[in-house]
């Protein structure tokens, strides 16, 4: 098996881990093991998996509140991710962040951020820091289609363009800001034009095809490592589940959902790899079993993990 093939199998495996993890999370939410909000990424896995595969581990990654996939793709363990949902001390944010606030410093995952658009200036700050130190790190900044109408987003894009910072703004256009379809929120037919006003190179990509995402992002990363500048990418994608757990998603038709499920990123890559004789059905099943096992184990791990100690309540307000 050549290196390319190994990489593609990893893409598939990473997407499966996210999918099975979130299916288990959804189930645990119904069992009231998880509180608050829980926004699932199911359907969108190709975007972050492809993007992460196109970047280096020391590149910064920051995203919004639909962040489980982003941490998992970056290398945060399913155990730490599930424990965070359970509010346990072994969680990736020690049980203090929750579903919307995953952080993993070791893996340069600089957060899940829950105020729509509020993290986009932070991404620019991280890219600024890299430029200030003379590093060629890239910052990947993910957000949804709902963020592009926020002031913070616009101010951040202007700064990145003004100072030629290495940020890739990735708009995961899943076509709904909560229950509002893009055509009811945004005065643009094509969202990537949003960055035209900042003289930024833009690109619209198929966010359901992980190979394409990786390839397209790879080109962008290569360009901006050589010549510092921001890029704006609109990844067309779709979320299968509601906005959060209590959303029956009555704002869209079943047919529309089925149409997108027909382009499922995992199924697409599986079929391609099988057709190209790079993957057997048995291998796929093994891969899927592993993903399910990791998800099951993460539930057990989270269940058995301790709560954060009450005595530590005041330990995280300030650092000494």
């Amino acid at each position, binding site marked *: 098996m050549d290196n390319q093939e190994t990489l593609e199998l990893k893409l598939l495996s990473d997407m499966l881990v996210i999918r099975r993890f979130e299916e288990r999370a959804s189930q645990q939410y119904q069992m009231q093991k998880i509180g608050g909000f829980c926004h699932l990424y199911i359907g969108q896995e190709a975007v972050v998996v492809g993007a992460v595969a196109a970047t280096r581990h020391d590149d910064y990654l920051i995203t919004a509140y639909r962040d489980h996939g982003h941490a998992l793709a970056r290398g945060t363990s399913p155990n730490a991710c599930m424990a965070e949902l359970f509010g346990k001390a072994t969680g990736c944010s020690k049980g*203090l962040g929750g579903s919307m606030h995953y952080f993993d410093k070791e893996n340069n995952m600089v957060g899940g951020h829950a105020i729509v658009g509020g993290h986009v200036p932070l991404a620019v700050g991280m890219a600024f820091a890299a430029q200030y130190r003379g590093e060629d790190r890239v910052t990947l900044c993910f957000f949804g289609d709902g963020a592009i109408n926020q002031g913070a987003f616009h101010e951040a894009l202007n700064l990145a363009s003004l100072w030629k910072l290495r940020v890739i703004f990735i708009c995961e256009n899943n076509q709904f800001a909560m229950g509002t379809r893009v055509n009811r929120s945004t005065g643009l037919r094509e969202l990537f034009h949003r960055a035209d006003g900042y003289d930024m190179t833009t690109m619209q990509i198929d966010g359901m095809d992980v190979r394409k995402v990786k390839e397209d992002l790879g080109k962008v990363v290569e360009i901006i490592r050589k010549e510092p500048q921001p890029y704006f990418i609109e990844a067309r994608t779709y979320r299968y589940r509601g906005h959060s757990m209590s959303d029956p998603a009555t704002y869209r038709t079943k047919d529309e959902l089925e149409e997108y499920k027909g382009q499922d990123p995992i199924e697409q890559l599986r079929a391609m790899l099988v057709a190209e004789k790079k993957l057997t059905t048995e291998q796929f099943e093994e891969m899927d079993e592993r993903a399910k096992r990791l998800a099951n184990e993460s539930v057990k791990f989270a269940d058995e993990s301790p709560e954060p100690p009450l005595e530590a309540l005041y330990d995280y307000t300030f*650092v000494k």
Partner: protein
Amino acid sequence: MNGSLNQLQMRTITYRQALNEALDEELARDPNVFLMGEEVAEYNGAYKISQGLWQKYGAKRVIDAPISETGFAGLGIGAAMVGLRPVIEFMTFSFSLVAFDQVVNNAPNMLTMSGGQFNVPVTFRGPNGPAHMLGATHSHATECLFANFPGLKICTPATPRDAKGLLKTAIRDKNPVLVLECELLYASKGEVEPLETDLLIPLGEAEVKREGSDVTIICYAQTVPMALAAAKKLQDEGINAEVLDLRSIKPLDLNAILTSVSKTHRVVIAEQDRPFCGIGSEICYQIQRDIFDELDAPIGRVSQEEVPMPYNERLEAAVLPNEQKIIAAVKEVCG
């Protein structure tokens, strides 16, 4: 002030110069420190606090930002999360309200939300509180707003020495710190240690600016010179007032407050913000909770009037705390 200061060759400089020295020294000391804000570089600062720093340190370290408070406040927070030491200037803290989400939601929450992984060593600084005839939108005293968010430290220097020492400490702190300066005090003068002294004043330490025995006037920022002037006049009328400058709102030096009040048994709080949920209301609560029996009179309080700031000079003066109002409040609690 302690006795050893007298041996040093103290210099008389302005509050503006003191802040400038603090920035200059910290920029020189730590290559991770940078200053960003509107007009801080080529224009030398809207209030000339950063005079000469762009020429000295260049555009990499002293950076003009466009009028995008949310953008550059957030940039500072992001840069701080990955290891830099940004000093972000708000041309006035009235403009920080445009970036409120960044200052109160991102800066102070990050350490907790990340389970201790990401601290945010950013300093936000600039003039705060009413100045002179700037009208309602430009006259906000924001300390009481920010004081409600755990995770932020807030200091309010009233003298050149405190301005320099607190700003230097703030820049070195590993947490987000707001340095709330006073436009009306920028030209005021005071004694400051020689340049070779690395002047650091801890956050959370109040200072008795004038010793007294009959009443404690608790004050900070703009109300410190008012309280000192009031104390001088009260002396002539036989009232010996102690003036306690909080210097920091958070952490609050409760010990210094309790010590002084336990000595004088009477209190007037002179604050530059508004009365409802102002800094004074919290201090009143803490005093009565801890040393109720030490109080010989209800706590007096001087704040702004509860109205949006009028432009007209006479009306503006009527809204603001001043020496006469402090004197009247002291006489009432000492009556």
